[in-house]
Each structure stands twice: as C-alpha cells, then as structure tokens.
C-alpha cells in the first residue's frame, strides 16, 4: 500500500473542500472496497478523508411519503429497517444477497454505490486496463470475460458495475443527494448516476471530484410484489453473474432492472412495459444490440430465465 495521510472530517463542506482541492485525496467510509484496492495499488490515494463522523446515519420519512437514507447508513441497517423491509423489500433483498454479514456491517450506502468493477484485469496491475490506466488498452477484450458486460459496454471497456443494492435502487427510481466544496447541493436520478464507459471508462459516475454523497432518497412505495433474483457461482458470498430486481403489480405490469450485465444497473422502460407478455419479450428488447463475448453470451438466456422465474413466482 502506498503511504497516505489521514484526517477525520467533521463538516461535509470542509470534507468536500479537502478532497476537491487536493489531487489524490479520497473519501473513505466503510473502507471495504477502497482498502482492498489500495492494498493492490489499483487505487493510490495520497490523502484519506474519513467521513464516519459526518452523521449521515439516519433513515427518515420524507414529506413526500418516501424515505431518505443517510449516506453512512450501513448495508446491514438499511436492509433491516422496518420500513424498507415492508415497503421497499426489493432493496432489502438486494442488499442481503450481496457480500457477507461482516462486510455488510461496514459497507455504507454511499460507498456501495461507488464500489468499483470486479473485472479481473482491473485488479491485476500487470495487465492493460483503460479503467485503471487510461489509454493502456483493455486486456478483457479478447481475454477472459466470463463475468464481464454484455450490453452498454464500449470498445474501450467491457466491465460491469458489480453491485446489487444499486440495481434495486434503479427499480425504485432513487435519487442520489450530494454536496460539493462550495456547499452546493444536487439530486441525481439513479438512472443517470452511473455512466456508460464510452471512451472514458476511468470515470464510473457523474460525480465531480470531491462531490460528497450525503443521502439516497426513495419516492413513495410502489406496492406490488418485490423480488431480487441473483444468479451466481455459489449460493452466497459471490458477485452476480446476472441479477434481476423487479416489482410486479397484481395485473402483471411492473418494473425490472438487471445487474451483472452492464456498466450500470440495466433498466429499459420500453422493455419492462412488455412484462405482461412474458420474460422473452422483455429481455429481447432490454438486451437489443447486446455485444456478448464467447465467454459470457450465456448471460443473455440466463437473464431471460431468471426473469421468467420471477414472473412465475409473482403469479404463484
């Protein structure tokens, strides 16, 4: 691990200033992704701003009837919250399908959204990787790509966003709230929060340098039945090969997003409108223009089957 200096922030704007003004400065929340990558020198921050004292640890009702989740609420606490379990079950389900009990106790809402890809070449500093070293090439294209993306990828990077929680947040149309070094706040729809890689895979999200996530807000509950179906190489403690987050209404309409397939939680509204016609119709449209590799083309039928399973459960 490269040497760094460490500070504990006590004020959000001061924290944002500390990170924005100092190249190489980064926030640390739970540390479960950043420290992992620092040990491998995939990430090499020179200064860490620890945000644990900023107090964003509450889950509150919003005046609109939704929920406001502080950026530092742990994954365990969010999944266990009574309102979330009852009204936003897809979110609890997605979180509980991810990582391990130990990791969820540390992982935060903000840090989870910003977890980096699990592409094996991104982790291996001996290999070319445009995301880790812009312009160096992409070892995954033509390499081992079983876990990687099938849709929304680019000729410079075919990695996925690996997380589960964000896939549920996409179905729920969450907003990400931030504050910057000037005290300016904004709300970013989750749909536009993670970027498609295009020719700039080094940038995962639309956040500006130093922009601090303060909360995630949810609109009022959708009702319906909530599902998170995650398909992976072992039954627990593994990243998704494909996942399906869905909220299905009694009349068979609903919302659906896929994880493990693209640079961001993959939801195509025109495709989910076809839910009453069945899984095939939805995935044919959602994955139109997909560019799978020989290693990962299994993800397309897998997505259809995982969705078919969800629809069958909703009808049962």
């Amino acid at each position, binding site marked *: *691990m490269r*040497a*760094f*200096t*460490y500070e*504990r922030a006590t004020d959000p704007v001061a924290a944002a200033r500390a990170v924005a003004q100092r190249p190489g400065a980064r926030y*640390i929340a739970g*540390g*479960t992704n950043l*420290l*992992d990558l620092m*040990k491998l020198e995939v990430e090499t921050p020179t200064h*860490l701003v*620890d945000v*644990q004292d900023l107090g964003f640890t509450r889950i509150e009702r919003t005046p609109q009837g939704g929920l406001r989740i502080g950026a530092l609420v742990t994954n*365990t606490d969010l*999944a*266990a919250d*009574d309102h979330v*379990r*009852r009204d936003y*079950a897809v979110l*609890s*389900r997605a979180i*509980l*399908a991810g*990582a*391990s*009990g*130990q*990791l969820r*106790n*540390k992982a935060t809402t903000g840090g989870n959204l910003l977890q980096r890809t699990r592409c094996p070449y991104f982790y291996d500093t001996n290999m070319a990787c445009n995301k880790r070293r812009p312009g160096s090439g992409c070892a995954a294209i033509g390499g081992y790509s079983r876990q990687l993306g099938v849709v929304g990828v680019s000729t410079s990077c075919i990695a996925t966003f690996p997380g589960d929680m964000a896939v549920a947040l996409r179905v729920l149309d969450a907003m990400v709230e931030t504050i910057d070094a000037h005290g300016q706040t904004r709300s970013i729809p989750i749909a536009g929060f993670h970027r498609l890689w295009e020719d700039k895979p080094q940038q995962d999200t639309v956040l500006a340098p130093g922009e601090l996530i303060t909360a995630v807000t949810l609109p009022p509950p959708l009702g319906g039945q909530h599902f998170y179906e995650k398909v992976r190489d072992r*039954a*627990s*403690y593994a990243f998704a090969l494909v996942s399906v987050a869905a909220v299905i209404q009694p009349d068979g309409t609903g919302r659906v997003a896929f994880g493990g397939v693209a640079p961001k939680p993959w939801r195509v509204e025109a495709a989910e409108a076809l839910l009453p016609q069945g899984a095939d119709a939805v995935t044919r449209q959602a994955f139109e223009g997909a560019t799978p590799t020989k290693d990962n083309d299994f993800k397309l039928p897998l997505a259809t089957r995982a969705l078919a399973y969800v629809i069958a459960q909703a009808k049962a």
Partner: protein
Amino acid sequence: MVDWPRLKLSRRGVLAGTTVTAVAVGAPAFTEASAPPAAQPVPTASVTFSVNGRERRLALDPRTTLLDALREHLHLTGTKKGCDHGQCGACTVIVQGKRINSCLSLAVMHEGHEITTIEGLGTPDRLHPMQAAFIRHDGYQCGYCTPGQICSAVAVLDEIARGIPSHVQDDLTASPRATAQEMRERMSGNICRCGAYSNIAEAMADVAGDNA
C-alpha cells in the same frame, strides 16, 4: 531507505505482512526509472481503542489495518490473516458489537471503539459457550479459520436475536429464526479450507438451542 539491519526476519516477521516486512519480502527490484523514495520518517497517527476491555493506545503508520494492529502491535495473534482482502473471514472480530473483517479496516478508523477478539470471548479455563461448543462438536480441523468462525458465530446469534434479516428468509418482515439454513447463509463470509462446516453449524445450533 529501509533500515535493513534492524529487521529481524523471524518466521513470525516474514508472515507478519506489515508494511515493513512486505518491503523486505518483496525483494525490491528498483531500476533507475523507479528509484526508491528518499529516506523520510514514516508518518504515524495515534489511536486509542479498547481491546477485550483494556484500553490501548498506539502510534501507527496510518496504513496499518486493524488486523495488523491487533496481531503485530498488540500481539493478539488469535485473530488470523487468511486472504487480507475480505474474502475469507479469518480476521473477523467484533467491533462496537458488530462483526467485521479487521483486514479491510484501518486501525486509525477505530478511535474510541470497543473491540472484542477471540482472546476476549473466553480463555482456556473460562471458555465462551461457543468455544466450548466448537470443541464438543469438532468444529475445526487445522483451526486456522476457527477464531474468525467463533467470533462470527457469536455475532450471528446476536444478529438473529436482534432481528437482522437474511437472504434465505422467506418472509422479510418476520423475525428470523436460528435454523440450520439461516446459520449456513449467515456464516458464508467465513471460509473453512478444511471443510468443518457441518460441525460448525451443529456447534452453533447447540448454543442457539441453549439460549432458546
């Protein structure tokens, strides 16, 4: 430059994996292009936390993980380093009442925290019920994963008692129960290379039954 003569390369030192020994093990192949950094004092940060009920104050390189602070600085070597990347659970300790992977946390992030390691759960003459149950049910073979398994198992029963839901729960709004299926899912963050899983699950069921 690293002060080589002062490094005693005992077996423990080689296995330690602190930043200094990491340099020693990874035999530096410095070329002119990547010259070693000029000699500079290692920056230290101080942290105070309580380990097994005893207050500890340490001055550490900020890079020191909680795991290395416990093992290398406080010589509490019960907590084990398996992967050092959050993937195996050997380093599991209980911080502020919650189990975490001590390898993926910096020691300086734990100012004022209460930390319990396997040494704090029980001692050879006063075993924690979970330690006793692991012995009774043969919940280990080589024993390397065991401190992490036991810390995790103790925390799992507490999580179930506090109503924390899990992935295998059918009804999310119901209170979880200490079933075998629940125990297996909740313990998935602790890998056992020897495959002592079924005996670990039995040890946990035993303790859970006693508490019920």
